[in-house]
């Protein structure tokens, strides 16, 4: 489609007055701003003495939640594995030993190195089983070590609940976990 004259907007360069042309008042004002900043509080966080203050929805290491009876909540519906853009979740379902659900994950492995920490699995899960915690300083000595299996993921749950950094935010039936903030 050809360009019409009405599509073009002409802008005039702003005319500088004499004070602006001198540049000195502007420089003085700039120096004032700079000097003011010297005395303002600093925003540096002195790591590792101070830990950063992370928001509750920070996307760190995953965990598998337990329900009130201590069983793994996951029902092996494969929603998270399907939603994952990096294909890092590996699930093998098996008939569940408990009466109130059909399946449970016999094998649940997340490759933490492949994961892009997008949180899609957390959003996709219908039973609030998988969540991303605020643990950010994840290290390992080998690639195999960083493939977290079910036990490891459950242990992350135990640790974060014990440490109180990531309280249980699940809410069966209501809006997803991202909408619930800890009380």
């Amino acid at each position, binding site marked *: 489609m050809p360009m019409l004259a009405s599509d073009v907007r002409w802008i005039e360069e702003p005319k*500088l007055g*004499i004070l602006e042309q001198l540049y000195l008042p502007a*420089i003085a004002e700039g*120096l004032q*701003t*700079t000097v003011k*900043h010297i005395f303002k509080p600093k*925003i*540096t966080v*002195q790591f590792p003495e101070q830990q950063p203050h992370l928001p509750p929805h920070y996307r760190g290491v995953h965990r598998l939640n337990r329900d009130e009876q201590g069983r793994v909540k996951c029902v092996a519906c494969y929603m998270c594995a399907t939603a994952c853009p990096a294909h890092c979740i590996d699930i093998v379902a098996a008939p569940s030993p408990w009466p109130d659900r059909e399946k449970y994950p016999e094998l649940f492995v997340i490759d933490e190195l492949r994961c892009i920490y997008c949180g899609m699995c957390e959003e996709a899960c219908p039973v609030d089983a998988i969540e991303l915690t605020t643990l950010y300083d994840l290290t390992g000595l080998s690639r195999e070590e960083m493939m977290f299996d079910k036990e490891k993921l459950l242990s992350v749950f135990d640790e974060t609940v014990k440490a109180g950094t990531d309280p249980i935010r699940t809410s069966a039936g209501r809006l997803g976990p991202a909408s619930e903030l800890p009380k």
Partner: protein
Amino acid sequence: MDRSLLVTFITIVCFLAVVQGVCAYLIWLERKLAAWMQDRVGPNRVGPFGLLQPIADGLKFLFKEELIPNHVDRLLFLLAPSIALMTALLAAAVVPFGPTNAAPRAPVPLWANASQAEKAQYEAAAARYRYDQEMFDEEMAEYRSHYQWVIAPNVDIGILFTFAVTSLAVYGIILGGWASNDKFSFLGALRSSAQLISYEIPLGLSIVGVVLYSGSLNLEQIIQHQAREGWNILYQPLAFLLFLTGVFAECNRLPFDLPEAEQELVGGYHTEYSGMKFALFFLGEYTHVVTTSLLLSIVFLGGWSFPWIATADSGPAIKFIVFMVKVVFFILVYMGVRWTIPRFRFDQLMGLAWKVLIPLALLNLVCAMIVREFQLTPWVLLATSIALIVGAGLIATRRPLAA
């Protein structure tokens, strides 16, 4: 000269040691101030408040591998940082860094064949200066009995010597860029040489107005004159601004640091340098900063003099403290301006020097000459300086904007 070689030697050693130490800690101060101005903390891990950081940096430079790339011109590559540092240090040889007295002026010789009228005219003009030989000898003996806080006292071409040697520092940069044999260094060196040469002209011209008043290029005389008559910045603020801009360009500091701009040229003329050679370039730059801060406080702010606190008869301690306060103030101005003003583009930089600073410096000089010739009060110069600044601003608003 009566001053003993030993005294001079000790002065040189002390001055060099102090200047090198100050340069190292200026790096610390720069990093800390830069951090504070950017709402962060700066180096604080090495020693309390990061005070051992320059020592860590120095050790790092010493232990770093001396890398000389294959494609460089070896002799010039190794020579360039030495020239940069050497000229910077040499320029500081005539700059006072503490309380000084001015030497008495040499007796004016009477011409053998001059007519009475000429002699009378000359003597009338020289009436401000004593021209009696005995009095001169007495005063000279008294001058020599005091210790002057300068490496080379009573150099009558003081400030001219400083400028001349500082101009030689351009060689360090040009050779560094040329010898590095790569395009970024080359461009940086060319830009730097053009910049330095262009900004030396307003630098020198702005000083001539001051020199007309103090009657001598001798830095100690300039201080003496200001101790009697008041600081030069009060009478010639335009010259002060021109000189300030000139020294920013001479030290290759923002807003004129295009030759070493990281965003533009990777590193400019010091791209290929690492280890101690890079440290020498850096030390040269900071020595320039220190020398030009000293010059600024000597030529415009009266050196060690302060109207009531530090006059010619005060003790050396108070004079030294006053002097150092002024020098530190200018160093802080350098650092504040660095983190405030954006960098000039190269054509803007050259346009500023040739189209703004040189005409203003020339006009300032003409005003100074007129005022001196007709022996008007120096306060007229203050009025003309302000008029020139305002006039320049008015002209700038009328001109069509450059493309």
